[in-house]
């Protein structure tokens, strides 16, 4: 009985996911180029949300530093594009800052393979190091969150301060071509959109695989009772580090895609406010559900772009109020709302318990 309901539920879920994927692939047919570009940007954000959900929703560790990982990925891609655009000469902002030769750490970014690898591995490595020095010493919860926030501050000051190497507050912008195709042409944009959808689906499958695996079970166990997991004989620190690194790597991927769509990366995109907004996407969608994270990122950003165009001041107030309402009244987010609605409709069935009882709100 249980098995049968489970499998039919699973079939439904699969059907819904497949339908959503088809919708995403068909979006270019109905959307204008501008809207398509916007959607592509939101889908890139959704990849960050997936990673964040992995570490926050499933492992119970709140990171406010994902802006940094996102930014590192973005800068890796931007450095490649910039070198491509300047065609062997010194990038313009270095020229203005009085540099005469390309800095050594810029040189390898001339190759796309290195840039792509760096965009994923640099954030993951940074996360691994930060995770090593914190989780090993059982610095967790609030302390870890504050440390990640400090990481954001120092990264932003560093990037702003080292203007000659990073472009300062303006960031890195002004690139034109990818593999010889113009980035501005609608055709390239459409292709980039498809790439983003494919990467998003890939990231979703990866996260789903992780969550369903034994590794994912340990992560949830850590979220619900870290010390118990330790007493059973696991070392939570290793699991936390790996989850954090994967999460950071996903943010890096998203940053790379973001640069391709938007054409600029600057320190303001990795600051405190964007980092916290990323957390809100997950909170809105529902932490501990992967679909919710994607949904939250797309929904909130769509709302933001339609809302803030006409009422830029109201948006900030609205965003703040949203934080308060979601955190206090809807700790499970939109997915939780959906779950309790479903439970309300077919009250008394055992599936009700399954839908609601599984997820404790992560601390």
């Amino acid at each position, binding site marked *: 009985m249980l098995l049968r309901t489970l499998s039919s539920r699973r079939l439904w879920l699969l059907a819904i996911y497949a339908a959503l994927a088809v919708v995403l692939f068909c979006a270019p047919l109905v959307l204008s180029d501008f809207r398509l570009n916007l959607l592509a940007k939101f889908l890139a954000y959704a990849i960050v949300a997936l990673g964040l959900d992995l570490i926050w929703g499933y492992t119970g560790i709140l990171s406010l530093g994902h802006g940094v990982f996102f930014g590192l990925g973005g800068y890796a891609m931007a450095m490649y594009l910039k070198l491509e655009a300047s065609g062997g000469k010194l990038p313009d902002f270095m020229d203005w800052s009085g540099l005469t030769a390309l800095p050594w750490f810029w040189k390898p970014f001339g190759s796309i393979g290195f840039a792509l690898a760096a965009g994923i591995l640099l954030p993951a490595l940074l996360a691994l190091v930060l995770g090593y020095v914190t989780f090993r010493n059982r610095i967790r919860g609030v302390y870890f969150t504050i440390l990640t926030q400090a990481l954001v501050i120092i990264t932003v000051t*560093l990037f702003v301060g080292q203007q000659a190497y990073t472009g300062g507050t303006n960031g890195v912008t002004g690139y034109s071509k990818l593999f010889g195709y113009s980035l501005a042409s609608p055709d390239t944009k459409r292709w980039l959109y498809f790439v983003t959808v494919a990467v998003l689906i890939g990231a979703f499958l990866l996260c789903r695989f992780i969550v369903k695996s034994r590794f994912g079970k340990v992560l949830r166990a850590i979220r619900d009772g870290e010390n118990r997991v330790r007493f059973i004989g696991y070392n939570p620190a290793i699991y936390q580090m790996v989850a954090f690194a994967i999460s950071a790597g996903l943010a890096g991927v998203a940053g790379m895609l973001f640069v391709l769509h938007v054409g600029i990366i600057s320190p303001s995109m990795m600051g405190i406010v964007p980092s916290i907004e990323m957390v809100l996407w997950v909170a809105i969608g529902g932490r501990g559900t992967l679909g919710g994270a994607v949904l939250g990122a797309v929904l909130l950003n769509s709302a933001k772009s339609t809302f803030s165009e006409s009422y830029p001041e109201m948006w900030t107030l609205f965003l703040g*109020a949203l*934080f308060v309402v979601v*955190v*206090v009244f809807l700790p499970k987010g939109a997915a939780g709302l959906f779950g309790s609605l479903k439970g309300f409709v077919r009250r008394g069935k055992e599936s009700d318990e399954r839908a609601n009882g599984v997820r404790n709100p992560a601390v």
Partner: protein
Amino acid sequence: MDVVVLQLFNGISVSSILLLIALGLSVTFGLMKVINMAHGELIMIGAYTAYVVQNLFNSYMPSSLFGWYFVLAIPASFIIAFVFGLVLEMSLIRFLYGRPLDSLLATWGVGLMLQQIARSIFGAPNVGVTSPEWLNGGVTALGGVVFPYKRLFILGLVLVCLIFMYVYIYRSHSGRRMRAVMQNREMAACLGISTRRVDAVTFAIGSGIAGIAGCALTLIGPIGPSIGTYYIVDAFMVVVLGGVGKLVGTVFGAFGIGMSNTLFEYWTTASLGKVLVFLCIVAFLQWKPSGLVAMRSRSLDN
């Protein structure tokens, strides 16, 4: 020699401001495990209160009395921020006890709203507060180094707040109740302490001190809606470094971060200095993961 004295004085000055901001934080964080990200906005409220008091003096009082507005501004900022804190605790924070990370997110939302409201009332650009006449100038010490009166005044203010906090926490009845709740909430409740009220009052006092900090910041530079965000993360680092729940820890944390910040920035550049301070903090936490002075507790998860 002059340089050393000057850097030391600068370090102490920065540390004292950090201490003033972190004092309120360590009280709310230590007692209630609430991460109040709106603390920065309470600082802003204090700063704008000083601005309003100044404007009131400007329009309604004879100009000979103008210099004394600051004496009134300090208690006024304390009271206004205190009331704000009380309202915030009653309306929001009390639903979030036991959920520290949630409290962080919710209070960040509150902070965002307060910033926007301030922007609507006072305008987005920074406003200046004229320091009173008697705080201009400074003492010339050995070797021709000038210590500005403003910085010395802030130093004195911090000292007074510190003494007040010490007396309140360690020498008064309500402070004793506060410490009891901090150490063992259930036991304190069993002994008839209204933890509800202790929470509210403590949070309000922490907020009030943030207000004083904001008032002090008006002496240093112009104030704007986002004045609090510059300091808030540093202040949290002070609390993390110093350990939660003891005044001594906060004092050492503030001086550790303030002094090293000034020195590293003097030796390298501003941005590299920040990186070095952060690395030092992380390195220090490897040695003492729960900060310099930690409360001893037998509970497993705290």
